[in-house]
Protein backbone atom coordinates (compact mmCIF):
# COMPACT_ATOMS: atom_id res chain seq x y z
CA UNK A 1 0.00 0.00 0.00
CA UNK A 2 1.12 3.51 -0.69
CA UNK A 3 2.21 5.61 2.24
CA UNK A 4 3.27 9.21 2.72
CA UNK A 5 5.61 10.17 5.55
CA UNK A 6 6.31 13.64 6.88
CA UNK A 7 8.98 13.23 9.52
CA UNK A 8 8.84 16.78 10.90
CA UNK A 9 5.72 17.35 13.04
CA UNK A 10 6.68 21.01 13.62
CA UNK A 11 9.17 23.49 12.23
CA UNK A 12 9.98 27.13 12.81
CA UNK A 13 11.64 29.65 10.54
CA UNK A 14 12.53 33.30 10.86
CA UNK A 15 10.56 35.67 8.69
CA UNK A 16 12.28 36.26 5.29
CA UNK A 17 14.38 33.10 5.67
CA UNK A 18 14.11 29.87 3.70
CA UNK A 19 12.70 26.62 5.06
CA UNK A 20 12.43 23.12 3.62
CA UNK A 21 9.72 20.64 4.59
CA UNK A 22 10.41 16.97 4.01
CA UNK A 23 8.18 14.28 2.53
CA UNK A 24 8.89 10.73 1.50
CA UNK A 25 6.50 8.24 -0.01
CA UNK A 26 6.38 4.58 -0.79
CA UNK A 27 4.93 3.21 -4.00
CA UNK A 28 5.57 0.61 -6.64
CA UNK A 29 3.85 2.72 -9.30
CA UNK A 30 5.69 4.77 -11.91
CA UNK A 31 2.90 7.14 -12.94
CA UNK A 32 1.65 9.31 -10.12
CA UNK A 33 1.18 12.83 -8.81
CA UNK A 34 2.48 14.56 -5.73
CA UNK A 35 1.04 17.60 -4.00
CA UNK A 36 1.66 20.01 -1.18
CA UNK A 37 -1.40 21.48 0.51
CA UNK A 38 -1.52 24.27 3.06
CA UNK A 39 -4.08 24.38 5.86
CA UNK A 40 -4.14 27.74 7.68
CA UNK A 41 -6.05 28.24 10.96
CA UNK A 42 -9.25 28.66 8.93
CA UNK A 43 -8.90 24.93 8.11
CA UNK A 44 -9.46 25.56 4.39
CA UNK A 45 -7.20 23.26 2.38
CA UNK A 46 -5.28 25.19 -0.26
CA UNK A 47 -3.17 23.67 -3.03
CA UNK A 48 0.37 25.02 -2.89
CA UNK A 49 2.11 23.10 -5.63
CA UNK A 50 1.87 19.85 -7.60
CA UNK A 51 4.32 17.64 -9.45
CA UNK A 52 3.71 15.01 -12.10
CA UNK A 53 6.07 12.06 -11.66
CA UNK A 54 6.77 11.83 -15.38
CA UNK A 55 8.18 15.38 -15.41
CA UNK A 56 11.83 15.63 -14.44
CA UNK A 57 11.74 19.37 -13.92
CA UNK A 58 10.93 20.47 -10.40
CA UNK A 59 7.72 22.47 -10.07
CA UNK A 60 7.84 26.07 -8.86
CA UNK A 61 5.12 28.52 -7.85
CA UNK A 62 6.47 31.93 -6.92
CA UNK A 63 8.22 31.48 -3.53
CA UNK A 64 7.39 27.79 -3.39
CA UNK A 65 9.45 25.10 -5.10
CA UNK A 66 9.92 21.38 -4.76
CA UNK A 67 12.88 19.04 -4.87
CA UNK A 68 11.51 15.89 -6.48
CA UNK A 69 13.82 12.91 -6.27
CA UNK A 70 11.94 10.05 -7.92
CA UNK A 71 14.50 7.33 -7.27
CA UNK A 72 14.70 8.26 -3.61
CA UNK A 73 10.90 8.76 -3.43
CA UNK A 74 11.40 12.14 -1.87
CA UNK A 75 9.35 15.29 -2.42
CA UNK A 76 10.44 18.24 -0.29
CA UNK A 77 8.91 21.72 -0.30
CA UNK A 78 11.08 24.81 -0.13
CA UNK A 79 9.57 28.11 0.94
CA UNK A 80 11.74 31.12 0.18
CA UNK A 81 11.43 34.55 1.80
CA UNK A 82 9.05 33.17 4.44
CA UNK A 83 6.13 35.42 5.34
CA UNK A 84 3.87 35.51 8.39
CA UNK A 85 1.00 34.33 6.19
CA UNK A 86 2.88 31.11 5.46
CA UNK A 87 2.23 29.91 9.00
CA UNK A 88 0.03 26.84 8.61
CA UNK A 89 -0.12 23.08 8.56
CA UNK A 90 1.44 21.67 5.40
CA UNK A 91 0.40 18.31 4.01
CA UNK A 92 2.19 16.23 1.42
CA UNK A 93 -0.11 14.07 -0.72
CA UNK A 94 0.22 11.30 -3.30
CA UNK A 95 -2.09 9.99 -6.00
CA UNK A 96 -1.42 7.08 -8.30
CA UNK A 97 -2.76 7.42 -11.82
CA UNK A 98 -4.02 3.86 -11.50
CA UNK A 99 -6.68 4.49 -8.87
CA UNK A 100 -8.52 7.36 -7.29
CA UNK A 101 -7.21 7.33 -3.76
CA UNK A 102 -5.32 10.38 -2.64
CA UNK A 103 -3.16 9.68 0.39
CA UNK A 104 -1.97 12.40 2.76
CA UNK A 105 0.90 12.55 5.22
CA UNK A 106 0.31 13.54 8.85
CA UNK A 107 1.40 17.11 8.21
CA UNK A 108 4.07 19.55 9.36
CA UNK A 109 3.07 22.60 11.38
CA UNK A 110 5.13 25.58 10.25
CA UNK A 111 5.66 28.55 12.57
CA UNK A 112 6.98 31.85 11.22
CA UNK A 113 8.97 33.88 13.76
CA UNK A 114 8.79 37.66 13.32
Amino acid at each position, binding site marked *: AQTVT*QSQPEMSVQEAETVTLSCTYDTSESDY*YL*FWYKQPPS*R*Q*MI*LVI*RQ*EAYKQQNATENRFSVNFQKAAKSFSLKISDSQLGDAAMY*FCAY*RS*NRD*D*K*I*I*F*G*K*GTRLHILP
Partner: protein
Amino acid sequence: SQTIHQWPATLVQPVGSPLSLECTVEGTSNPNLYWYRQAAGRGLQLLFYSVGIGQISSEVPQNLSASRPQDRQFILSSKKLLLSDSGFYLCAWRPLGRESGNTIYFGEGSWLTVV
Protein backbone atom coordinates in the same frame (compact mmCIF):
# COMPACT_ATOMS: atom_id res chain seq x y z
CA SER B 1 -16.30 28.17 -12.38
CA GLN B 2 -16.50 25.13 -10.19
CA THR B 3 -17.43 25.38 -6.54
CA ILE B 4 -17.94 22.93 -3.73
CA HIS B 5 -20.35 23.39 -0.84
CA GLN B 6 -20.40 21.39 2.36
CA TRP B 7 -22.85 21.63 5.25
CA PRO B 8 -23.51 21.94 8.08
CA ALA B 9 -20.36 23.77 9.09
CA THR B 10 -20.68 22.85 12.75
CA LEU B 11 -22.57 20.05 14.43
CA VAL B 12 -22.89 18.89 18.04
CA GLN B 13 -24.58 15.52 18.33
CA PRO B 14 -25.20 13.12 21.24
CA VAL B 15 -23.74 9.64 21.20
CA GLY B 16 -26.08 7.23 19.45
CA SER B 17 -27.74 9.87 17.28
CA PRO B 18 -27.70 9.78 13.47
CA LEU B 19 -25.50 11.89 11.22
CA SER B 20 -25.86 13.37 7.78
CA LEU B 21 -23.24 15.61 6.18
CA GLU B 22 -23.87 16.79 2.67
CA CYS B 23 -21.58 17.97 -0.10
CA THR B 24 -22.41 19.28 -3.57
CA VAL B 25 -20.20 20.36 -6.43
CA GLU B 26 -21.28 22.90 -9.02
CA GLY B 27 -19.93 23.77 -12.45
CA THR B 28 -18.65 20.35 -13.42
CA SER B 29 -19.94 16.89 -14.24
CA ASN B 30 -18.91 13.39 -13.26
CA PRO B 31 -16.33 14.47 -10.70
CA ASN B 32 -14.59 12.04 -8.39
CA LEU B 33 -15.75 12.74 -4.85
CA TYR B 34 -14.06 12.11 -1.49
CA TRP B 35 -14.76 12.23 2.22
CA TYR B 36 -11.82 12.76 4.59
CA ARG B 37 -11.69 13.02 8.36
CA GLN B 38 -9.12 15.01 10.29
CA ALA B 39 -8.93 14.16 13.97
CA ALA B 40 -7.43 16.75 16.32
CA GLY B 41 -3.74 17.29 15.56
CA ARG B 42 -3.63 14.54 12.97
CA GLY B 43 -3.49 14.15 9.23
CA LEU B 44 -6.27 13.51 6.76
CA GLN B 45 -7.75 10.05 6.75
CA LEU B 46 -9.53 8.96 3.58
CA LEU B 47 -12.94 7.55 4.47
CA PHE B 48 -14.78 7.10 1.17
CA TYR B 49 -14.39 7.95 -2.48
CA SER B 50 -16.71 7.71 -5.44
CA VAL B 51 -16.08 7.65 -9.17
CA GLY B 52 -19.75 7.76 -10.17
CA ILE B 53 -23.38 7.63 -9.05
CA GLY B 54 -23.93 4.74 -6.68
CA GLN B 55 -20.24 3.76 -6.75
CA ILE B 56 -18.68 4.01 -3.30
CA SER B 57 -15.33 2.71 -2.15
CA SER B 58 -14.75 2.44 1.58
CA GLU B 59 -11.28 2.80 3.01
CA VAL B 60 -11.94 2.45 6.71
CA PRO B 61 -14.40 -0.06 8.22
CA GLN B 62 -16.48 1.80 10.78
CA ASN B 63 -20.00 2.91 11.55
CA LEU B 64 -19.99 5.56 8.83
CA SER B 65 -21.41 5.15 5.33
CA ALA B 66 -21.48 7.26 2.19
CA SER B 67 -23.90 7.62 -0.68
CA ARG B 68 -23.92 9.38 -4.02
CA PRO B 69 -27.55 9.74 -5.06
CA GLN B 70 -26.77 12.29 -7.78
CA ASP B 71 -23.75 13.02 -9.94
CA ARG B 72 -22.56 16.00 -7.91
CA GLN B 73 -23.90 15.09 -4.47
CA PHE B 74 -22.02 13.12 -1.83
CA ILE B 75 -23.48 12.32 1.58
CA LEU B 76 -21.76 11.00 4.70
CA SER B 77 -24.04 9.25 7.17
CA SER B 78 -24.15 7.31 10.38
CA LYS B 79 -27.03 5.56 12.10
CA LYS B 80 -25.45 5.80 15.57
CA LEU B 81 -22.59 8.13 16.33
CA LEU B 82 -19.70 7.19 18.61
CA LEU B 83 -17.51 9.55 20.62
CA SER B 84 -14.62 8.59 18.35
CA ASP B 85 -16.48 10.00 15.35
CA SER B 86 -15.71 13.53 16.53
CA GLY B 87 -13.47 15.46 14.15
CA PHE B 88 -13.24 17.73 11.17
CA TYR B 89 -14.79 16.26 8.02
CA LEU B 90 -13.74 17.43 4.61
CA CYS B 91 -15.44 16.78 1.30
CA ALA B 92 -13.32 17.04 -1.82
CA TRP B 93 -13.67 16.64 -5.56
CA ARG B 94 -11.36 15.90 -8.45
CA PRO B 95 -11.98 16.80 -12.07
CA LEU B 96 -11.20 14.13 -14.62
CA GLY B 97 -8.51 14.37 -17.22
CA ARG B 98 -4.77 14.95 -17.12
CA GLU B 99 -5.16 18.63 -18.00
CA SER B 100 -6.59 19.26 -14.56
CA GLY B 101 -3.35 18.11 -13.01
CA ASN B 102 -5.37 15.65 -11.02
CA THR B 103 -5.65 18.21 -8.26
CA ILE B 104 -8.36 17.76 -5.67
CA TYR B 105 -10.28 20.70 -4.29
CA PHE B 106 -11.73 20.83 -0.82
CA GLY B 107 -14.90 22.13 0.75
CA GLU B 108 -14.93 24.33 3.83
CA GLY B 109 -15.24 21.40 6.20
CA SER B 110 -17.66 20.35 8.92
CA TRP B 111 -16.82 20.25 12.61
CA LEU B 112 -18.52 17.34 14.33
CA THR B 113 -18.50 17.03 18.10
CA VAL B 114 -20.11 13.95 19.57
CA VAL B 115 -21.07 14.42 23.22
